[in-house]
């Protein structure tokens, strides 16, 4: 983005910034090539976060029936005196899901804060 140098910059800083804010917002709402690229980037980032964390659950939880079927000795083991499948599905699954969810909320909010920053302060 253009920067103004010297004395003029101090005088016109407010005006220039206000115009730039409107410009990026307009690019988005008018679906200009720049605005469209910005939006596609945002959607792609958010979807990538969601898919990555979904993959963690698909492997971590979704792999269990296969694991138990393929390795009956794992299914029959008893850490802490409780059968492993009961421990995993009855207890551990819930905090696991919550932690994955909390990670997504953090990632998604950071992405949105960065995007807002980009639109409102394009000179940075």
């Amino acid at each position, binding site marked *: 983005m253009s920067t103004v140098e010297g004395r003029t910059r101090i005088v016109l800083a407010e005006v220039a910034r206000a115009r730039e804010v409107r410009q990026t*917002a307009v690019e988005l709402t008018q679906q200009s090539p720049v605005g469209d690229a910005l939006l596609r980037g945002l*959607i792609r980032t958010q979807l990538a976060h969601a898919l990555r964390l979904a993959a963690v*659950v698909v492997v971590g939880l979704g792999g269990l029936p296969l694991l138990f079927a393929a390795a009956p000795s794992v299914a029959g083991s008893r850490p802490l005196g409780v059968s492993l*499948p009961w421990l995993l599905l009855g207890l551990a699954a819930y905090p696991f899901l*919550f932690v994955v*969810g909390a990670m997504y909320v953090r990632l*998604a909010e950071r992405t949105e804060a960065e995007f807002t920053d980009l639109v409102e302060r394009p000179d940075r």
Partner: protein
Amino acid sequence: MPHSPYALPAIVAVTLVTVVIGAYGLRLARTTSDFLVASRAISPRSNAAAISGEYLSAASFLGVAGLVLKNGVDMLWYPVGFAAGYLALLLFVAAPLRRSGAFTLPDFCELRLGSTRLRKLSAAFVVFIGWLYLVPQFQGAGLTLQTVTGGPYVWGSLLVAVVVTGNVALGGMRAITFVQAFQYWLKLTALAVPVIFLVLHWQADGRPAITPVPGGTFAAATTVHFENEATLTVPDSATVDGPLGPGRHVIPAGTVLTFPAGSPVPEVAGVVRGEPWLLPGGPGSGGLFAAYSLILATFLGTMGLPHVLVRFYTNPDGAAARRTTLVVLGLVGMFYLFPTLYGVLGRVYAPALMLTGDTDAVVLVLPGLALGDEVLGQLLGALVAAGAFAAFLSSASGLLTSVAGVLSTDVLGRGSVRDFRVASVVAGVVPLVLALRVASLDVSLVVGLAFAVAASSFCPLLVLGIWWRGLTDVGAAAGILAGGGGAVAAVLATFGGHPSPGWTGTLLSYPAAWTVPLAFAVMVAVSLATRRRLPGTVALTMLRLHAPDGLRL
């Protein structure tokens, strides 16, 4: 079954509190907006408690423990999936859906794809899923009243149906938000407090084994009333003689048998026993295909449940919707720690249920059976009964609100307050009649099928609609008809006909593993083939769905 004298007063108290809070909400509800979306003035935390309260239904409160008692560890996929559904909702749907401004699924169809015909199609699916889910709520209410008071089955169903319909018709959403936040905490307390006493009792008993090999013995003298014919096999290793000699017996319906303490629990056809109960892939599980079908249906079905989505509109913005969903994930996960314990302790203290097949009642009768007919056991039994009623009242309220909302805007009228009231009565009467006429269906099985229909119709619509620009109205309709229609056909075949043996039966009882991929594939393929029908506003809609809330565009 021991009948607690406190159970009926507790049920009446829960019902009264529900009505009173509803009436309090009624005074506040003045405009149509108040009525339908609680004016969007509800804090995330009470909204999250309300969503959880609405979500934890008869299937969660009674059904999960019953299934665990009957079939063992494989059934834990139900509660895990019910909770994981909120993670899928959080990852793919929550914030964009809230920003879309859609109040119902048909609204979302119209906003995103601008098609009135697709709107009508999705309205039909909302009503079907809602009714499919309401029937077991009313049945659970009948079962509860019958179990804890010995009263007739019809009254429980009728009581819940009338209270809920009246409350929804008169108070609208503002009322049920308060009611349901309260009911979440009631349900949690009603399971958590008795389970502390039950576990302490089990410790004091010297931790009796949960799956003795080969069978178990009755901890106390037990009288069993067989309402249906049963085939029992008594092992010949008995040290104490029961009323039946070793070998196989066919018990005719109406028989009453008393088993003395220490006599062996007979084996029953259809109930998993011994070591297989403890291990995954047991005889009652239906194998890997069924396990993955169940996982798909529950993980992806939650986002397509109409009464869950309605709640998201009461969040102020997308970020709040995301935070609310995370709190719900925590609250629901905390709740599901308890039903498992009831199912496990039921193996020790309520073996009679396995003989009669009445396993859905285990949560209700366990406090009385384990802790005896003293005041403590009776009070805890009453608390559990009250929690069960809270479960039926809150789930049924949420379902009824969403079905009535769709009926009033898309079928009967134009969404005025009067239309909404008429629609709630219609929405309540149909499933009540079904619940009274249809023979008792397994609570969790019905709910599992409702999830399968939702996962194969609305899940692909929402996920593709939110993340893929290429979705067209024709593609969406084709996918819903192929996947959702397939799931509906499977549901009707499962209920209507005799369960077919072998692979056909498995494909029909666990449809999600083929209907969900089918719905996605058809939706994408037909959308690509009808690319000319892409709505011109798609880029603006995408901006609205995904632009951060703080950005005022």
